[in-house]
């Protein structure tokens, strides 16, 4: 009795060729007036990153891969720890939450994901504009918030900012790659093989304001490898306020 809508959506969307260009480039933004000076003694709380790595079938479906996801989670954690010194401020990992705290955290993770999707969809990449955000876009104002409820999140009392990280990779399967090559040489169609999407956001843990967001629809570096995940972590956090990580 499940998956009714999922399967219909799947059939309608996946099949073929040109994937959606919505997040095909990279963009980042900082809230007006926000500056995080290096070594200012601020503490940044990192919430559990959302990471999934898998393959892309010939027809374009996402095929989850537990082994790759575990490797990526481990490698990215190591890479983020290594970057800590370059972020310019102290980084703490959010504590495991239980009961009411866990529910509150879960709601805020979902809220962050909805807000950052809205930023990416309606502000970062031209095309769609929310009527209420038209002026912000014209004047280059970056004004989004999760609300003051973030102050009650577990671990928030000992930190100044919260960092959320999302990462999803789909590596083109052999079939997809062959399809890509044949489609290019035969009818001359562009088939995209693989998808590497990620974004990271910094939230003020007192006001809930979104201070910085970096989204990239085509990330480099292979998080399944140690070297690749360092590059990936640098790209996720590039132009992080107060850091010396530059755009690559």
């Amino acid at each position: 009795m499940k998956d009714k809508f999922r399967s219909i959506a799947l059939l309608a969307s996946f099949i073929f060729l040109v994937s959606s260009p919505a997040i095909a480039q990279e963009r980042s933004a900082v809230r007006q007036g926000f500056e995080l000076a290096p070594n200012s003694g601020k503490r940044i709380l990192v919430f559990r990153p959302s990471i999934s790595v898998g393959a892309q079938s010939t027809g374009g479906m996402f095929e989850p891969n537990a082994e790759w996801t575990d490797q990526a989670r481990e490698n990215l954690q190591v890479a983020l720890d290594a970057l800590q010194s370059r972020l310019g401020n102290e980084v703490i990992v959010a504590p495991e939450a239980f009961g009411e705290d866990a529910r509150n955290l879960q709601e805020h993770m979902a809220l962050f994901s909805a807000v950052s999707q809205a930023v990416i969809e309606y502000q970062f990449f031209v095309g769609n504009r929310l009527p209420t955000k038209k002026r912000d876009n014209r004047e280059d104002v970056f004004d989004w918030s999760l609300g003051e409820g973030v102050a009650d999140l577990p671990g928030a009392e000992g930190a100044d900012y919260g960092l959320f990280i999302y990462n999803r990779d789909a590596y083109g399967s052999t079939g997809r790659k062959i399809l890509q090559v044949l489609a290019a040489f035969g009818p001359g169609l562009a088939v995209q093989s693989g998808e590497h999407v990620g974004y990271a956001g910094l939230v003020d843990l007192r006001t809930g304001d979104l201070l910085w967001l970096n989204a990239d629809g085509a990330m480099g570096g292979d998080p399944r490898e140690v070297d690749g995940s360092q590059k990936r972590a640098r790209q996720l956090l590039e132009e992080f306020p107060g850091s010396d990580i530059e755009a690559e």
Partner: protein
Amino acid sequence: MFRFALASIVTGLLSCASAAGALAQSAPILPPYQGVYQPVGVDEIGIWQEDDEGERRLAASPLVIRDERLTSYVKDVLCSAVGEDRCSATRVYIMREPTFNATMSPNGTMRVFSGLLLRMRSEAELAAILGHEFGHFESRHSLNIFKSQRRGTDLLAWGALLASMSPSYDVRRNYRNLEISVYGNLFRYKRDQEREADTLGIVYLNNSNLRPQAASEVWQNLMGEIEASANSRGLSRPRFNAVAFTASHPPEGERAAYLSQLASPEGASRDDGAARYQEVLSTWLPMFLDDQIKLNDFGASEYIIESLARNGWTATLWFARGELYRTRGNQRDLVNAAQFYANAIGMDANLAEAYRGLGLSLLKTNNMTDGEAALRRYLELNPDADDAMMIRLMVPTENSQ
């Protein structure tokens, strides 16, 4: 040449899908318990890991009703259907969601919707649905669906490539036909899996201590509800044996028929646990009925209330019926609603909410004196109600004090 290639691929796919979907119609027996199952292979391990993440989110979801007594009762009903060894692989979550559904995901997470609990009338009926869901789990249907969707979409990708290399009208038409047959096969494959899960569900029930005939009654009741809903909206009578192209499940009429055939006749005299079920659900009925009424489906809600009242009307049921009529809100409905609230108060003189509904209905039908008296009684019984300030505005004497 391309046409030939397409045609042979289509034939290949059709035969493969129908072989996979073949249903054993012979007398079903309980498959031996395989022990605690662990996922095998890249796909299944990957799906389980995604599902584990999903369950992590589910456990912290505000939609889950966190009541230990209710949750463990539902789990016990599942265990009594499928047996202690099997059911130990599952976690049950009760979701506050007023529709008729339950789902089982690949890693053994069972979601039971409050709307299902409202509609079941006995442990045996609930066990029939939970056993069906467990059948999906035991037969690893999610994995098979994933694989069949992947096969289908892979085939369409190659088909589209071939078709675009020879842009003639015939080739394009062949590709369209291929698309339709792949989609049609995927939907039919899902329906066949539902039939398989139904079969497994009834086998569990036949081997349990509960009455297996209840499985068919669930669908008969649901057909009654769908028909009542259609009638009250002036729609034509629904057809319970027609299969739509995109239908995810077999039609209700077909399910009711084969479930009643497969139910073991020796089981007919068994207990169906109706009394125990009603006892546990009684504390939850007000909330579940309220959610149902807010779906704004008059015919279905009325059908549910009346079928619950078959064991005798209670204050809760009269109150729910009053709310249902008052929410629809025609003048004629308000007169009925006032009567239903009065019945509820007759059975439970301290039911504050019933005084509120009674007062509001009477005010709207211009019966001011009685209406204000009822609202005053509501404020006496529940002075801290959320809407106390607003109700006070409607009661002049209270206001001037």
